[in-house]
């Protein structure tokens, strides 16, 4: 970006070049370790990733169906104070998401209070009428959330996006830590890094806690995948293995008399909780897309009877699209009566005529996003785009303004990253994973840090050439 100035907040170094306290030891280590050692370790990391086969598929890229996400060997560090504030904010945010979902599918008090417009719920393509008035076990809709946050200064975290459907990426968080422990055991002696390895235990405890009241004793949890052609299949099998639960596809299960069963070698076994990584549209051909082969016919009937828990619930998309995002501060205040701990990026709703006018007039300075887009697709970064691209995008926005929002470009923080030119600052974001159970909210310290590897780039999505880093929360 041409407008790049020294004003970016670097997480390791203060503007005067001094090293921030959390990074003291790492900075010293980076200064003393020979570059060829780093190079060698990086190659080793890549070799391990290739051997374990951790890959992802890029949609819309026919040439390569599977790709390795680049891993950066320099960890990103947060101190305990920073993490405590962030995790309080995350818990608050997810509580509000759950309250909003319960309300939107039941009494809709928020409409009566005039906080959000009716179209935001009823006009939303991912609103599921089938969930209207439907009770979900323990009133929890989002058991697993991935909240994308960024920093712009030492004090503030901004939420960039809530992911309340089927957030992925947690396997990278776990793998990154495992590799760092193998490659740099010495660093873990100097740094009291909070563990993330208990994520699978936390997830299993969360899933079991939300089992239906009708389930007996120890609930049976399964992980449901669309199958090997899904871009996150690696993660599905990885997580099922860590959870110690069955990895199932729709065809491995069936419905009988309002109960859900999976086929096993010892006969049918009742299923209580499905951690499903299959989109709403495909989970039950008798209720949603009739041509879907990925789901279980009758699954929604079992759900309606209260005999199975789906994690996440059906219809959570209305809480995480980019249109509802702009209302999140009000949603938090409405349901919790609290001020939001995490900030929201200022957002212009193109559905509103005066805001649309502003967006079109300032489109070269803004980031414009499709309301239902994800993975960095269907988005325009005004300052980085040429005139022709901007004009084409503006025409798209004008044709269907409801489908777009715009935000100022954020000065994402940078972290030291090992790239071709040596160690240089690169922009990062963070996706922590928030688990909501009947008993409590669990968040393993850290999350998945994504890093934009090209100089000046602000797009961290793996599908757009981003990489990942291990994220350390220091226990001090």
């Amino acid at each position, binding site marked *: 970006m041409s407008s790049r100035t020294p004003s970016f907040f670097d997480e390791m170094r203060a503007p005067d070049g001094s090293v921030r306290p959390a990074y003291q030891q790492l900075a010293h280590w980076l200064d003393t370790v020979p570059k060829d050692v780093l190079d060698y370790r990086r190659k080793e990391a890549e070799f391990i990733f290739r051997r374990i086969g951790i890959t992802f598929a890029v949609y819309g890229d026919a040439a390569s169906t599977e790709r390795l996400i680049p891993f950066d060997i320099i960890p990103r560090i947060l101190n305990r104070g920073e993490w405590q504030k962030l995790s309080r904010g995350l818990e608050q945010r997810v509580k509000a998401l759950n309250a909003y979902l319960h309300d939107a599918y039941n009494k809709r008090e928020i409409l009566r209070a005039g906080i959000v417009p009716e179209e935001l719920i*009823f006009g939303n393509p991912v609103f599921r*009428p*089938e969930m*209207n008035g*439907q009770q979900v076990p323990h009133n929890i809709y989002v058991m697993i959330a991935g909240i994308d946050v960024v920093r712009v200064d030492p004090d503030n975290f901004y939420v960039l996006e809530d992911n309340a459907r089927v957030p992925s990426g947690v396997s990278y968080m776990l793998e990154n830590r495992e590799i760092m422990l193998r490659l740099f055991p010495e660093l873990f002696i100097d740094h009291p890094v909070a563990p993330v390895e208990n994520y699978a235990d936390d997830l299993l405890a969360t899933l079991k806690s939300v089992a239906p009241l009708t389930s007996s004793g120890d609930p049976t949890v399964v992980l449901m995948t669309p199958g090997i052609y899904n871009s996150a299949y690696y993660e599905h099998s990885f997580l099922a293995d860590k959870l110690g639960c069955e990895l199932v596809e729709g065809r491995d299960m069936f419905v*009988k008399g309002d109960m859900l069963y999976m086929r096993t070698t010892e006969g049918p076994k009742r299923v209580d909780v499905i951690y499903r990584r299959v989109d709403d549209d495909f989970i039950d051909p*008798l209720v949603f897309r009739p041509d879907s082969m990925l789901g279980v016919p*009758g699954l929604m*009937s079992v759900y309606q009877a209260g005999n199975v828990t789906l994690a996440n619930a059906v219809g959570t998309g209305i809480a995480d699209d980019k249109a509802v995002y702009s209302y999140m501060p009000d949603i938090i205040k409405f349901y919790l009566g609290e001020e939001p701990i995490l900030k929201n990026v200022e957002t212009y709703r193109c559905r509103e005529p005066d805001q649309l006018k502003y967006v079109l007039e300032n489109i070269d300075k803004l980031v414009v996003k499709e309301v239902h887009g994800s993975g960095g697709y269907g988005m325009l970064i005004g300052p980085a785009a040429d005139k022709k691209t901007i004009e084409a995008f503006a025409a798209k926005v004008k044709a269907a303004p409801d489908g777009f929002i715009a935000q100022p470009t954020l000065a994402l923080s940078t972290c030291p990253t090992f790239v071709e030119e040596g160690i240089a600052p690169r922009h990062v974001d963070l996706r922590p994973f928030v688990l909501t159970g009947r008993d409590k909210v669990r968040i393993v310290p850290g999350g998945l840090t994504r890093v934009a590897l090209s100089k000046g780039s602000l797009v961290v999505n793996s599908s757009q050439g981003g990489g990942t880093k291990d994220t350390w929360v220091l226990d001090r």
Partner: protein
Amino acid sequence: MRIRIAHETVYRYDTPATRAIQILRLTPRNHDGQYVVRWRVEVSEDCRVEPREDSFGNLTHTFTVDGPISELSVRVAGEIETQDTHGIVRGTREKFPASFYLRQTDLTTPDKAIADWANEISDGGRRGALDTLHAMQSHIYSNFKFDVEATAPSTTAQQAFANQHGVCQDYAHIFCSAARYLKIPARYVGGYFLRGDGVVHTESGHAWTEAFLPDLGWIAFDPANGICATEAHVRVATGLDYLGAAPVRGTRYGGLGEAMDVKVSVDQASRQSQQ
């Protein structure tokens, strides 16, 4: 008027199916001008039939059957007392505000052709809504070719509109598509129709629409017959489109060579039954 209805669907398999599951939307409810005198749901196989209300307020029955199944029949039958309400629909179970029914679905999303047609009929919005809806209904009735061979349940409003043919279901999709495009809430209705020509036995139920006007409420339009609903219409299920109101959504495991046989009879109860 008292209407007697029997609707039987028989599935036969050359190779028996190992399991079957179905969700039925085949049970009418009471509302102004419609009273269910008696109604039965019968499944040929031994199974538990779970009654439930869906999110649109329709009564559903869900059942699963263990195989081997070489033949399965589902029969609903009963008598309904109806009165003419001039198409005005009142006393129904409403789960959503009317504005919810502005949602288009995969089956109703309009293309330019439908949008142009809607604009033309509404005279660019200058014509009153009620008048526009009547004109849409007559236009479909007069200009579209009724053809049971031409379309399937998965046919979209766009496809049926482009070819100007279809069955009552396609007409209802086109009507909903255009009405919603004009910001008039509209929904799909599945049910039965007592024909005026004396034909009692057919191979399917009927489908029409309801549109919402703030001062009148829901009004039933039947583009396939070119009239607003009368005492000859028995309303069973509503939804955003056919899929939401489908009489049967089901599947089977195994079972090759399925043959399905549907018999619907709709008659005045006072007439001598022919069954």
